[in-house]
């Protein structure tokens, strides 16, 4: 696995419906950021291109900056605009 990070990527609500799945494992080069993950997803084409270029993202349950580095085994969730309450 040297040189790569494996990211558990989660989709919710409208994103989940858009993509037809709630979870993907994504392989990225070591040093990849949140932003790189989003680019990698969008470059898959099809429905993935409808994802925002800068969605809100949580890494391991915490809202995180697009520039944050990812580590192997991170759980990354793309968070659509929230509507609780």
């Amino acid at each position, binding site marked *: 696995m040297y040189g790569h990070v494996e990211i558990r990527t989660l989709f919710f609500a409208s994103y989940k419906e858009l993509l037809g799945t709630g979870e993907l494992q994504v392989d990225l080069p070591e040093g990849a950021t949140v932003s790189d993950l989003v680019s990698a997803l969008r470059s898959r084409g099809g429905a993935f291109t409808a994802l925002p270029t800068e969605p809100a993202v949580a890494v391991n349950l915490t*809202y995180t900056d697009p520039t944050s580095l990812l580590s192997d085994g991170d759980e990354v969730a793309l968070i659509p605009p929230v*509507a*609780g309450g």
Partner: protein
Amino acid sequence: MTFTAIVREPIDPAHVLTLIGADQDGASLLFLGVVRDHNDGRSVGGVRYDTYEEMAAEVLSEIVGEAARSAGTDRIAAVHRIGELEVGEVSVAIAVSSPHRAEAYDASRYIIEEIKKRLPVWKKERYSDGAEEWVEGRPPTAPNTVPAPPAGAPQADAPQADGP
């Protein structure tokens, strides 16, 4: 001790009230968010709340912790329901007690406003014509832009026009 939960079962407001209150408290405040029969001019028959449950549990607990520190009371309970709800059912209950009323009002309001800003919960409305739609929410507040909870003094958060 504060109490927070993301639940699937109906919320019993009277039970939530039993989670707060202490002999030194002169004020208790219970806020209930309720599914209403309309939104943006459309007739709503019911809603479905989805969540990122592990994160929602964390975020709700953080929000309540902030309110507790600011208001100087740990007698706070906040419960958010997810799943299918009918009109009139309670989606969120927030109970706060404190020695004086100002702190209870401030903490209660802070918690519901922050829930609407940050809690990873999504709402799909079911309209009377059978159509369903995700409610347009707000981009969640990133951690580095989360406003600090009101320090000490009563907090005056701008009232939000959206939702309950």
